[in-house]
């Protein structure tokens, strides 16, 4: 497994070549190189997974170490990669879905003047994300963590002439860095108490920490995870991040980067196992976020914003799962979500591309007959997202809800079920508004080129059939695959009883989801958009439409505080800092003023001064002797 580093080096090289030689190589060559790098990385990953599968489950873990990075006293940090089923799953998602999205971008970004820069950034992102998921210690996890943040910043603000894109990029960066600080602090505590940062070192010594220390580390790690994965109340950057090009939304803000938080909690499960308070918190906030974001998504009119809130909501489900120790179920949902959410975003991108950058759903409608491939693939994605029975989202979401119920988290289950109703409602509202009824815009819709529709078809196959790796009551290949990772330390696997399917609960959610689809069809599939709402619903609509005023609240609290701090800092700067600086300058100035008359320019005066000085020296020497 020593060769696994090649998977990281390929996009690194691609990014570098696109950045340095992009102009010289031209668009075509650049896209071949960068997309080719992703394709090669994917094949390499497949070979790694193949070799893992050939081994007995207990041996499917490799930790090739390449360099010693830091050696300071007792602290040693190596640059090594951890290749096990968990990181291999992420490698497959990042390189596989990443490759499809790279491919799609060739069509979507066609004609953009900064085509090469875009592909350089995409490969840079892939490198950082791969480092994040394969690092075998917390330090390099943080390096990758920061790297994806930077790549995300660059890509959200890719159209840097749009003020809104720049603002959104900055917002994302600020909130993400707030999370990075959390992870950094957790790292400091680990170095101080355990003196090690490698996963193996930390996880086998968790028991030597006091429960307060463990809870603190878990909460700080969760702070980072919540910022990256857009958990309430740090979710505000993700919907704004839709200012970036749509493939970016699909790759970074749906399929890969935003799931890094789930990865972190799952990877650090021995810590969260030892910190029950933090784990409950993770699950509770997750369930709340799932419901909260789903309700906002119902009333938004921007197609990408709806999908963005949908992502926040689905991430909530994943955190609900990892919070109740159903790690395998969480990662399962994450994988399925990567498929169907990338599909939804790319489908939305295809629609936006076809309508000359129109994103308002009120100006869409009836696109079914213009864009058949996009229509059918989007339908599969929407069904998977809603959790319609027999689509992938159904299996993964029900796995989470079933385990929540079985492990005694009745309220979390209930919130999850309600959120499932809203999930189905918002995604089918979007679907019917966009593809059914009459066309309400004034562009000339057309189907997208094959370079965009092929990724849609491939992803839709994943969204359609991916769920069958884990059929409740029959088999669960996904759990088996991850089982060696989560059984290495205690607390990774729920008791066997929890894994048994609860047919009643599954039937209930299925009925609820189908009911939501019916409601969406009933109200949104018509030819005209209903603008009128019953009076009773209008205040609710207003609150939801304004996203519960979280942005305004954050603005009021933080901007007010920062303004006050700025006034203080300004005062300090003027009085103290400037005082010191200007004081020094005045001192020198004064001396200069005092001494300059003696520099008269008359040679004879200088001569006299020398003479007097000489006489003084002689007199002094004479007197001393």
């Amino acid at each position, binding site marked *: 497994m020593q060769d696994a580093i090649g998977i990281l080096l390929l996009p690194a090289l691609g990014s570098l070549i696109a950045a340095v030689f992009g102009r010289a190589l031209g668009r075509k060559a650049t896209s071949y190189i960068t997309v080719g790098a992703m394709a090669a990385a994917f094949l390499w990953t497949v070979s790694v997974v193949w070799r893992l599968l050939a081994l007995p489950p207990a041996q499917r873990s490799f930790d090739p170490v390449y360099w010693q990075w830091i050696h300071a006293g007792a602290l040693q940090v190596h640059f090594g990669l951890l290749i096990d089923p968990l990181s291999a799953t992420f490698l497959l998602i990042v390189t596989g879905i990443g490759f499809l999205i790279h491919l799609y971008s060739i069509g979507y970004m066609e004609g953009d003047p900064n085509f090469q820069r875009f592909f350089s950034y995409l490969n840079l992102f892939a490198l950082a994300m791969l480092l994040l998921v394969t690092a075998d210690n917390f330090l390099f996890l943080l390096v990758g963590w920061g790297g994806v943040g930077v790549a995300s910043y660059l890509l959200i603000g890719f159209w840097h002439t749009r003020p809104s894109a720049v603002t959104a990029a900055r917002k994302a960066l600020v909130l993400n860095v707030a999370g990075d600080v959390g992870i950094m602090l957790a790292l400091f505590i680990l170095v101080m108490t355990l003196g090690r940062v490698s996963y193996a070192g930390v996880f086998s010594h968790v028991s030597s920490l006091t429960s307060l220390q463990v809870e603190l580390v878990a909460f700080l790690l969760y702070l980072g995870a919540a910022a990256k994965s857009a958990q309430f109340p740090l979710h505000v950057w993700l919907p704004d991040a839709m200012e970036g090009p749509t493939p970016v939304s699909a790759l970074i803000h749906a399929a890969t980067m935003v799931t890094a938080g789930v990865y972190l909690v799952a990877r650090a499960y021995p810590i969260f196992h030892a910190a029950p308070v933090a784990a409950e918190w993770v699950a509770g906030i997750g369930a709340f976020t799932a419901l909260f974001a789903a309700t906002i998504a119902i009333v938004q009119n921007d197609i990408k914003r709806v999908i963005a809130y949908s992502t926040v909501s689905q991430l909530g489900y994943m955190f609900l799962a990892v919070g109740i120790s159903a790690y395998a179920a969480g990662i399962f949902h994450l994988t399925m979500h990567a498929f169907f959410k990338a599909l939804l975003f790319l489908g939305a991108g295809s629609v936006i591309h076809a309508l000359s950058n129109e994103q308002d759903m009120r100006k869409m409608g009836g696109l079914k007959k213009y864009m058949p491939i996009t229509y059918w693939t989007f339908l599969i994605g929407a069904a998977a997202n809603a959790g319609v029975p027999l689509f992938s989202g159904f299996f993964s979401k029900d796995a989470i809800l079933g385990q929540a119920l079985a492990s005694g988290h009745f309220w979390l289950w209930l919130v999850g079920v309600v959120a499932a109703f809203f999930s189905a409602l918002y995604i089918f509202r979007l679907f019917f508004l966009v593809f059914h009824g009459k066309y309400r815009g004034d562009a000339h819709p057309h189907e997208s080129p094959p370079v965009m529709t092929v990724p849609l078809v491939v992803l839709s196959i994943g969204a359609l059939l991916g769920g069958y790796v884990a059929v409740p009551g029959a088999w669960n290949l996904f759990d088996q695959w991850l089982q060696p990772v989560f059984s290495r330390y205690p607390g990774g696997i729920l008791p066997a009883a929890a894994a048994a399917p609860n047919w009643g609960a599954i039937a209930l959610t299925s009925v609820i989801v189908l009911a939501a689809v019916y409601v969406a069809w009933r109200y949104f599939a018509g030819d005209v958009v209903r603008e009128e709402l019953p009076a009773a619903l209008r205040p609710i609509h207003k609150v939801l439409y304004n996203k519960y005023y979280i942005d305004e609240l954050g603005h009021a609290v933080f901007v007010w505080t920062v303004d006050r701090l700025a006034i203080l800092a300004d005062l300090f700067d003027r009085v103290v800092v400037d005082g010191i600086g200007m004081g020094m300058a005045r001192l020198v100035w004064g001396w200069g003023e005092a001494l300059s008359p003696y520099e008269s320019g008359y040679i004879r005066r200088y001569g*006299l001064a020398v003479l007097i000085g000489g006489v003084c020296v002689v007199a002094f020497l004479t007197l001393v002797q």
Partner: protein
Amino acid sequence: MVPLSYYLILSALLFSIGTVGVLVRRNPLQMFMSIELMWNAVNLSFITFARQYTNMAGHVFVFLVITVAAAEVAIGLAIIVVVFRTREHADVDELNAMKG
């Protein structure tokens, strides 16, 4: 034999005349001559002491001083010529561009 003090008094007189010359004259050529007088006053005292203590180091110093004085005069005269060419005078009191 002439006593040592005579030589030294002569040396001191020559040095003082040179010093006053440098300080009161405004013509750079005359100032140079005065400086030359100071050099030679110093040379005289070197020779005096060399003879008194029969130590040849004094003679060596005198040769050194003569050499340096020659070099200094060469450079100084060159400067004066250049100043005269640009200013059409060589009054040192007018040459006060370095005034602070």
